């Protein structure tokens, strides 16, 4: 029998959270990629920067322009209108499909530490007034490695976007496949690529933004399937990790190998976009894809978006709602995850 790698009660819920630019870096002091203290040292130029200034500067070094890693929450704050995301599948998590020793403990610890359920946050938001499905991988969660939860959330997001006629934007940040979920992680590459292909076949736009680092199974699947591929300056992007290549060929890699600029040079990225121009750039690309038909779709979408907005719980209510989510699950046990998508969030919010 096929085993279902998902916890029965962990199906789609919806919550709203706002992360405004000024909140970036707050409430997350424990996270390893968040600078602590008054000053932060830039790993690239070595200069000490006022942490406040760094955060105000979208976590880019004001001396050398180095882009620090950003969490999923921070990204939404930087990217979406009013920092507002209608999150999907917020509690979708894995069940240790290989029964790998120690994995559940490590997972629980990482969840507690990061406040994330797994390495990606997906949902719907607006960029310069235009609705889009957005998925952001978080490099702090198991180094952004992709297991069944990430694969499932991405697949659901693409299926939803195909149904609603919406563009998709994915920010990749990943060390590759999640080893602890073994062959199941590998299969997520095929699963997500399939959903991307269907979305593409429907004539819909998919943009990937490759951030530091994007490697392994993520590079070899949805990261490289965007109609338009953008990259952040200096991001490490490749299939094999640099250390593995060095071991294989027995020599040091040249300076700049597998960096965003290298990808552009070799024809695998459309543009390198600095973080402070990213929102505007994505807004422009979205606008360029509003053909007559697309526009009509978008107007309808606008309406459903407003409806959803009205129904969604206010901030603060989100927490208590989430705690009750077990009650709302409708016999998801043997059901394929597909059956759960779509209406689930709107319904449950009522």
């Amino acid at each position, binding site marked *: 029998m096929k085993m279902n790698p998902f916890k029965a009660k962990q199906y789609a819920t919806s919550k709203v959270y706002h992360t405004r630019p000024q909140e970036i870096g707050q409430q997350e002091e424990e996270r390893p990629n968040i600078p602590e203290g008054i000053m932060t040292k830039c790993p690239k130029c070595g200069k000490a920067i006022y942490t406040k200034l760094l955060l105000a500067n979208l976590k880019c070094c004001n001396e050398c322009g180095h882009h620090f890693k950003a969490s999923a929450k921070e990204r939404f704050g930087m990217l979406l209108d009013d920092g507002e995301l209608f999150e999907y599948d917020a509690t979708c998590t894995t069940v240790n499909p290989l029964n790998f020793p120690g994995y559940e403990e490590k997972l629980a610890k990482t969840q507690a530490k990061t406040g994330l359920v797994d390495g990606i946050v997906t949902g719907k938001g607006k960029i310069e007034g235009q609705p889009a499905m957005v998925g952001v991988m978080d490099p702090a969660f198991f180094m952004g490695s992709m297991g069944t939860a990430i694969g499932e959330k991405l697949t659901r997001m693409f299926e939803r976007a195909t149904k609603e006629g919406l563009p998709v934007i994915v920010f990749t940040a990943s060390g590759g496949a999640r080893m602890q979920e073994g062959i199941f*992680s590998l299969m997520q590459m095929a699963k997500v690529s*399939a959903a991307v292909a269907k979305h593409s076949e429907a004539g819909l736009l998919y943009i990937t933004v490759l951030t530091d680092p994007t490697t392994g*199974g993520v590079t070899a699947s949805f990261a490289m399937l965007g109609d338009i591929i953008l990259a952040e300056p200096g991001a490490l992007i490749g*299939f094999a990790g640099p250390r593995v290549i060095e071991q294989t*060929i027995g020599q040091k890699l040249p300076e700049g190998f597998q960096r965003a600029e290298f990808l552009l040079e070799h024809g695998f990225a459309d543009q390198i976009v600095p973080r402070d121009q990213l929102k505007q750039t994505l807004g422009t690309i979205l606008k360029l894809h509003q053909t007559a038909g697309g526009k009509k779709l978008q107007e309808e979408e606008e309406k459903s978006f407003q409806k959803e907005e009205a129904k969604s719980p206010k901030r603060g209510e989100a927490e208590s709602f989430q705690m009750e989510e077990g009650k709302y699950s409708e016999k998801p046990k043997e059901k394929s995850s597909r059956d759960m998508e779509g209406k689930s969030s709107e319904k449950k919010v009522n």
Partner: protein
Amino acid sequence: MNITAWEKVKLARMAGRPTGLDYIELLFHDFFELHGDRFFAEDRAIVGGIAFFGELPVTVIAQQKGRNTKENIARNFSMPHPEGYRKALRLMKQAEKFHRPVICFVDTPGAFCGLGAEERGQGEAIATNLAEMMMLKTPIISVVISEGGSGGALALGVADKVYMLEHAVYSILSPEGFASILYKDSSKAEQAANDMKLTAQDLVQFGIIDGVIPEPRGGAHNNCRQMARNIKKTLEHDLKLLQQLSVDELLEKRYQKFRNM
């Protein structure tokens, strides 16, 4: 035959284990090899061409290990570069055009890791295969004959039916690589092989593959002809079933198969 996961790994890698070309020779006739990706190069780690399977013209694609050291070097130990995957895709698109089923034999430690592979977009080549195979309007059957390593194997493994030979292994990474990442000790490969659940028996139980093709006593190398007959039986059975489906049914089933993993 009851052997451990680690013994299977060793058996799958053993010199003398039949390779893709051995099966091509025994299963098909009039095999006509096609070379090159039309963009950059011919990658000999992947063999591809057209042949008759009984009366039926098919496209055959195989990751090919060398049968001796010299051939292994020429074939890069069956570790393809991007152009290998692009050649495979070219042949699959050609199969679609001429309504030929595609048969893939998977046998690779993984896609090659090197400077050229990165420069020419190893990730992009594999990703494109995954997406394109999912939408290919002709039946695809994939058989993992020995080693199915990582994304480099999956790039020929998105199929309507996926089989493994009884002692083949299929995994996210080599047990050695897995051990060095998770146990910080590559000598714990044996333990890794066990924890990773990479045998055909594990994968069929997970629903990742559709079936296990039995090997002759002691392994495929003991009786390559018998092994080929066993594969032939499976291919005949499935091709018949798959050819009865409309293109829409075929693609929907293929999508759902991977969707539920």
